[in-house]
């Protein structure tokens, strides 16, 4: 969903730039709580993996493709504040080095891919973690659900920005419907990739998964109880 330069007018791009800068400033402070000596290299790795995974466009039909956005994935693995920073670095490198996503559109892309998908992905994940059984096996499915929903929501937010500051006079209803339709399909891919990656990390190093933390702390105790019984 990388927005190129030109889709949105200057005032809208400035506004999303301010939103992005504010979110990064807040995240730089808040991420400190999520990052210790062990989590910091993990966060670097997650940002790097998201960059790589975003290069893999998968077909979703009718000559259209999509790729992982990674907001929900990063939020579950390293925490939401750190995830905003992960995605911001990804989008910065893509925009500056690879000409993927515009430069004046950088604030828009950080807002959509770095803030909206992280916020939605984490909110859905946290809600599901609260209502589902407190077991490690729910972490990956809950992450997948958050990932799925994060994509169409980001598509709707883009449509909202386009309604306010789109540079081309087109039918907004058609933009909303097609954006939502295609990105619901892409959301399925987002859910599959996120679920598989989170499940792999939970299976090998559950202690490195931010979204599994209360569970990994209790796990030793539970194991002991079972052994006694």
């Amino acid at each position, binding site marked *: 969903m990388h927005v*190129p330069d030109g889709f949105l007018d200057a005032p809208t791009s400035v506004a999303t730039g301010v939103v992005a800068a504010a979110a990064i400033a807040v995240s730089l402070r808040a991420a400190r709580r999520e990052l*210790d000596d062990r989590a910091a290299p993990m*966060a670097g790795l997650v940002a*790097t993996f998201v960059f*790589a995974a975003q290069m893999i466009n998968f077909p979703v039909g009718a000559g259209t493709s*999509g790729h992982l956005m990674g907001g929900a994935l990063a939020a579950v693995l390293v925490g939401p504040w750190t995830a905003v920073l992960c995605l911001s670095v990804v989008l910065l490198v893509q925009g500056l*080095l690879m000409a993927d996503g515009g430069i004046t559109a950088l604030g828009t892309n950080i807002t959509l891919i770095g803030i909206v998908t992280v916020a939605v992905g984490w909110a859905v994940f946290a809600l599901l973690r609260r209502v589902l059984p407190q077991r490690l096996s729910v972490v990956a499915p809950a992450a997948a659900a958050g990932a799925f929903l994060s994509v169409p929501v980001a598509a709707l937010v883009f449509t909202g920005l386009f309604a306010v500051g789109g540079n081309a006079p087109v039918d907004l209803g058609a933009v909303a419907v097609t*954006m939502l339709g295609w990105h619901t399909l892409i959301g399925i891919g987002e859910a599959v990739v996120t679920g598989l990656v989170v499940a792999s990390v939970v299976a090998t190093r559950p202690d490195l998964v931010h979204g599994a933390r209360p569970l990994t702390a209790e796990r030793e105790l539970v194991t002991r109880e079972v052994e006694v019984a």
Partner: protein
Amino acid sequence: MSTRTSGTRFFVVALLVSLLVAGVASYYASAHPDGLEHVAEQTGFIDSAEDSATADSPLADYQTSGIDDARLSGGVAGVIGVLVMLLLSTGLFWLIRRREPADSRD
């Protein structure tokens, strides 16, 4: 779940996966327009897109300028991207990490 993967091993495997995804698998990625591009074509605002200021960058569009072979050109761009990402993001997170031992509130 019984045998724990060591930190170094986890790190090396994850980095290797990222390098393979960006350097090798990316060649087989779908070349179709993504969802937003497709919608822009369908609904008629694709022409408002402008070239990025970095469109002439040596790695623009994940191709390395000066390398003709498409597979190699894309692979080199992907590997460079992964290494830049690793340095930049790990450096950032190492700088802003919490220095005192983890407290039990989180």
